């Protein structure tokens, strides 16, 4: 944004910004990360695994770019889960955790402990289920104590493969949650992601980023949250707004992902 000197007396007062846990409104973001065995395969360079690249990208996102997104920095709560075998593990992040939930106040996150490799499979069904449940639980908990949600919760799924189990039951719940305007869901495919399956999982919001560094997936997360700010419409319209921002008006997908 342009840097313009403010007229004398017109200032934004940093000392007035409430701590995120004291703010009356919240933005919930969930990131589901495939940590199956295939993540130990070579990434965009032969010398580094996808998991190593993912860890770098997560560190860069959580300690840097995420803090430039007002919806996260001001009053955002973020939860990140890694899924492998038949398990979904919510990551212990830096900073303050919202009581009784896997969500952390984004503003306080300043470091990241890398994920360790596994040789498990890819239980996307469990991951989607767990993400929806975590959002619903947090929303109920906040609403019960007088807090409101600023905008629709957003869930991102990052994978390099295909689900090792039938996802149809999870998709029924996901579609119902989308239609009820309870969540927006984006799927991001890297490595050997099965594009056909992912397009069924996220018909309007799957992005194949196989030819790009994993870091760009996290840039997509930041960019999308910014685009969705202030929007309230049908899921199709919301997804179209993100896709349009990704492609329209001389912005190439790569430029968008780079935050241009």
């Amino acid at each position, binding site marked *: 944004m342009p840097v*313009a000197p403010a007229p*004398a007396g017109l200032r934004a007062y940093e000392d007035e910004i409430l701590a995120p846990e004291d703010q*009356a409104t919240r933005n919930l973001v969930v990131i589901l990360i495939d940590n199956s065995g295939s993540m130990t395969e070579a990434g965009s360079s032969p010398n580094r695994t996808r998991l190593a690249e993912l860890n770098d990208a997560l560190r860069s996102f959580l300690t840097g770019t995420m803090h430039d997104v*007002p919806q996260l920095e001001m009053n955002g709560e973020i939860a990140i889960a890694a899924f492998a075998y038949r398990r979904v593990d919510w990551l212990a992040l830096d900073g303050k955790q919202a009581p009784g939930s896997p969500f952390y106040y984004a503003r306080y996150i300043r470091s990241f402990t890398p994920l360790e490799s596994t040789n498990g499979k890819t239980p996307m069904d469990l991951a989607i289920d767990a993400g929806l449940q975590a959002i619903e639980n947090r929303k109920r908990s906040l609403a019960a104590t007088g807090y409101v949600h*600023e905008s629709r919760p957003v869930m991102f799924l990052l994978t390099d493969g295909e689900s090792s189990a039938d996802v149809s039951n999870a998709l029924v719940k996901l579609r119902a949650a989308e239609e009820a305007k309870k969540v927006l869901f984006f799927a991001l495919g890297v490595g050997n992601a099965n594009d056909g399956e992912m397009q069924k999982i996220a018909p309007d919001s799957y992005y194949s980023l196989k030819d790009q560094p994993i870091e760009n997936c996290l840039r997509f997360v930041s*960019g999308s949250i910014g685009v969705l700010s202030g*929007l*309230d419409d049908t899921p199709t319209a*919301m997804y179209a707004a993100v896709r349009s921002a990704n492609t329209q008006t001389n912005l190439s997908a790569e430029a968008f992902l780079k935050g241009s």
Partner: protein
Amino acid sequence: MPNALSLTAIGSSHVQRGVPCQDSSSTLALDPATHLMVVADGAGSAEYSHIGSRRAVELVSAFAVEHWRQATLSPEGLRLFLQGLLSHVAHEFQISVGNDSRMMDGRLSDYSTTLALTVVSWPWIAYGGIGDAFLVGADPDDQLHLLVSPVKEGEFRNETEFLNAGATVNYRIFLDNTLSGLVLSTDGLEKFIEERVVEDPVQGRRPVMWAPSRTFVGLLAAAQQNTPPAEISAALSGDEFQKRKGDDIGVSVVWR
């Protein structure tokens, strides 16, 4: 027009998306002693909402003086003025789609916009709004008062209602001799209203404390010093202000 200013500032998220500023604003003289503040916030997801918000403000400008001639300075008179004007504007707005040369494409929903008005005839202040907006008052000691809050109904705070003939109008009428300045704003500045949830040992926790930022004092001061609107607008589009929400800002300011 003396003692009044209006401006818009594009938000960082709109710059990122490559879409224009979708907010519009204006301040009109209804008579030598009365201002009408106007702000409109085009829906982020509506393709032509930047045109819609502009059209809504234009229509207010076109009909306001005519309606004001029949108005009386009383709570009921001010409410009827706002009701009549908003109803007229909503009707004309709907028929603009397909008739106005800038609104030939799409449906009404493609031009969705909020619309909020405030009549100021000191000490009378009358607010009428469709969709979200808020009104801050300042007294001569620079104490700030939130006259209309940015609270919206619905599951999510960013849900709102848009200008149409059946829309619900939120009215607030004040008779206040202590106020000396007013800022009517779209939700682009709502992060400059501190909303704190406080503990209530009996009822649990509820959002009950509202505190407008000193930024509104600065905005009023900049307006009173005849700072060019473009200069204020450029500042509001800058990082210092945009890092709180990243949204377009539309404001109307009056003072006495």
